[in-house]
């Protein structure tokens, strides 16, 4: 007990010795080492691969653990621990696993680890939220040490995409050390091995020499937590850190210098306004369209988000399979909006309540306020209710918000999941219901052929575009600040994965 309790202190002491050179100095030492320090705003509560939920935690954990398959920078799924995944029937996936992979403690990785990881996520007792990504799975079977078969309750062609949310852990290690140690002293097969964790401060990782991809170019990674937006940019300016995530758009231009570069990546996250389509006034498609036409998305992108966003025609960003690039985002037509509103029987305008989270998405409450101001011009009077995310979520899940600003983003780059979440009759996040639409969507989501599935999604996208089910707005652009010595480019899955990073 005593030894265990003193571990964080020991870790802090060790990190103090290791880092005092490069942190306190003028950066001279930092130049020589190829340890990359990443600062993120959010704080991880655990390093247990089944319990992580936030993006910050995923960046750290996917450095320590590997995935079965992982998207590349184009968003295309590439083999990782699984060398191939084949659908042997509509409902059975057969995964061939990579040979010769070892965990950081030297244990060999095999099919039992995959089965155990998936089973654990599906076990309600584990408390893992990851079960929601693999709802379709019925059973995981070990065929031989390097072959796993996954049986699903219904055809799930995007299962391999979804499994990106489940980093693979070591069954033997878990059984040996127990859940608590497993989550605070993690062992994986990933490109970086865990060395220490000072909760709330930093996680230190070192390059894993025997990684199956080869040894990473850099010697190690330090993930620091710096919650304050001004302090995180100061740390980058002072040369203490090499990479910072989620740079606020207004700070980006002031940050750029000879020593600091700004990196951008079209985010997988899009922002929209969900409309309560089942009651007046938004049960009338003309009123919904009028609201869309009264929305000057371009002005919001330019003025509120300082250009760090891109207009999209419907709900999801272009990286999702099924995006329709033939659809044009609706233009800003306030006159036409007024006319439509009058035609729908509301010449005096309408009033409604809109909810918006605060601090969840880039400038979310500012965007909501800008919308309210724009809409007022066209005759929409809005009672805006801004809420902290933790208060927003329970109401969202009760489906009691009606009309609200919301975002969607996940590394599962298939339109089906997003369309289902925001449009199907029984989804908590949907204020729209059309059984025929649900049927078409369910059918589309079961099609194994990517091109064919994409074609069906495009049809559905056209439907919601024509119906103006939501106010369609924009996709965010992820902004990173990096020291000029770091050679790395951001990924569409928002994960800071530094296997291929270099330091000059």
């Amino acid at each position, binding site marked *: 007990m005593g030894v265990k*309790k003193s571990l*964080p*202190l020991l870790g*802090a002491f060790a*990190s*103090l010795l290791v*880092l*005092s050179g490069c*942190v*306190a100095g003028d*950066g001279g030492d930092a130049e020589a080492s190829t340890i990359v320090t990443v600062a993120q705003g959010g*704080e991880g*509560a*655990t390093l*247990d691969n089944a*319990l992580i*939920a936030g993006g910050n935690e995923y960046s750290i954990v996917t450095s320590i653990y590997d995935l079965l398959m992982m998207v590349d920078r184009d968003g295309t799924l590439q083999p990782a621990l699984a060398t191939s995944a084949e659908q042997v029937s509509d409902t059975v996936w057969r995964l061939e696993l990579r040979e010769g992979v070892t965990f950081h403690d030297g244990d060999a990785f095999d099919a039992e680890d995959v089965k155990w990881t998936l089973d654990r996520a599906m076990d*309600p007792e*584990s*408390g893992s*939220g990851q*079960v*929601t*990504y693999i*709802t379709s799975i019925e059973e995981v079977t070990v065929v031989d040490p390097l072959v796993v078969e996954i049986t699903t309750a219904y055809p799930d062609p995007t299962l391999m995409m979804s499994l990106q949310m489940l980093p693979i852990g070591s069954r033997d290690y878990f059984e040996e050390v127990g859940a*608590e140690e497993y*989550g605070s002293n993690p062992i994986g097969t990933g490109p970086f091995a865990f060395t220490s964790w*000072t*909760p*709330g*401060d*930093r996680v230190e990782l070192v390059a894993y020499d025997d990684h199956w991809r080869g040894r990473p170019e850099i010697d190690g990674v330090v993930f*620091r*937590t*710096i*919650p*304050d937006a*001004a*302090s995180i940019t*100061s*740390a980058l*300016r*002072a*040369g*203490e850190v090499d990479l910072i995530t989620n740079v606020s758009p207004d700070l980006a231009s002031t940050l750029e210098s000879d020593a600091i570069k700004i990196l951008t990546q079209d985010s997988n996250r899009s922002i929209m306004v969900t409309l309560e389509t089942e009651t007046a006034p938004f049960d009338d498609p003309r009123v919904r369209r009028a609201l869309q036409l009264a929305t000057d998305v371009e002005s919001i992108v330019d003025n509120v988000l300082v250009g760090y966003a891109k207009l999209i025609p419907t709900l999801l960003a272009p990286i999702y399979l099924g995006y329709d690039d033939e659809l044009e985002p609706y233009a800003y037509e306030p006159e036409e909006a007024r006319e439509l509103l009058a035609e729908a029987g509301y010449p005096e305008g309408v009033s409604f309540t809109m909810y918006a989270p605060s601090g969840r998405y880039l400038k979310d409450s500012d965007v909501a306020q800008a919308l309210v101001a724009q809409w007022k011009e066209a005759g929409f009077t809005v009672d805006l209710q801004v809420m*902290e*995310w*933790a*208060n927003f*979520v*329970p109401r*969202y*899940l009760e489906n009691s918000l009606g009309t609200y600003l919301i975002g969607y983003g*996940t590394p599962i780059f298939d339109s089906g*999941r997003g369309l*289902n*979440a925001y449009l199907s009759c029984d*989804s*908590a*996040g949907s204020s729209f219901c059309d059984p025929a639409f649900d049927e078409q969507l369910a059918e589309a989501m079961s099609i194994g052929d990517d091109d064919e599935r994409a074609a069906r999604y495009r049809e559905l996208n056209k439907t919601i575009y024509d119906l103006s089910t939501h106010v369609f707005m924009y996709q965010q652009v992820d902004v990173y600040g990096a020291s000029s010595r770091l050679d790395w480019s951001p990924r569409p899955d928002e994960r800071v994965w530094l296997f291929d990073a270099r330091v000059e």
Partner: protein
Amino acid sequence: MIKKTAFALIETAAVLLGVVVAVFGMRYLAGDPVGLYAPLDATPEQLDAIRSAHGLDRPIYEQFFDYVGGLLRGDLGTSLQSRRPALDVVLERLPATVELTLWAFIPAAIIGIVVGTFAAARRNSLIDKAAMGFSLFGLSVPVYWAGAVAILLVAVVIPIFPTGGRGSPLAIVLPAVTLGLATAARASRMARASVVGQLNQRYVLTARAKGVSESRIVVRHALRNSLATVVTVLALDLGVLLGGAVITETIFAWPGIGRLAAQSIAARDFPVVQAIVLLVAVGYVVIFRLLNLTYRFLDPRTETGR
């Protein structure tokens, strides 16, 4: 003595019970946290399963009695986020807060008392005016401004100290100075006011008449008689600081319990929030017990009358 100790224990238990009830009330009002631990498109069945794994599906009074039962066995529940014992999660962050508190508090208290006493002895001198001007500044400057300016000046423009974190020996300096500023200012004003008050007393006149040196009068008589007041104010400060300085810890990325509390509240990780509140409450009780002991030492008159 036994009676006194028993009374103190009962009093402490009553305070802690009050804290537990209050925090549980907050938990009830704050609503269901389960949505924060799963993706937004989780099905109601999946959410139910997670809820029941955390024991959140049971009636609130059952959860309450369970919690109190656990408390008596030294079990403060399990963190909803990490599924580790809540007490462990808090205890591993406590050293950072204690370290920051001591580095901020002890120098600030000493400097404050010394400066205040000196200012009182040289009332209306330039030194007095400068010291009181500075203390007014220390009290009025918000921590987030002082911290940001300190980072900009001596971490970015002139890189002497790290901007934050707890990774190097120098890292404590900026957060400790920023946090200690108000304490030093308060201590100096309190010390000055009380010492000035004492110096106006008749016993001081007597001492002067007897030819006692001025420095002895200030230190041995006036300051000694002022300490009880100053220490009371400082003890309040110490209690607040030990509760975690959320803003200072956030600006300087210092991994203390203040930030843990803020983050756990945002994540509705109730067991961790409860553990922090309880620990801080215990800390307060301990500080005030110690304070009562120091009174007897600082001012023996408090012992009489019993």
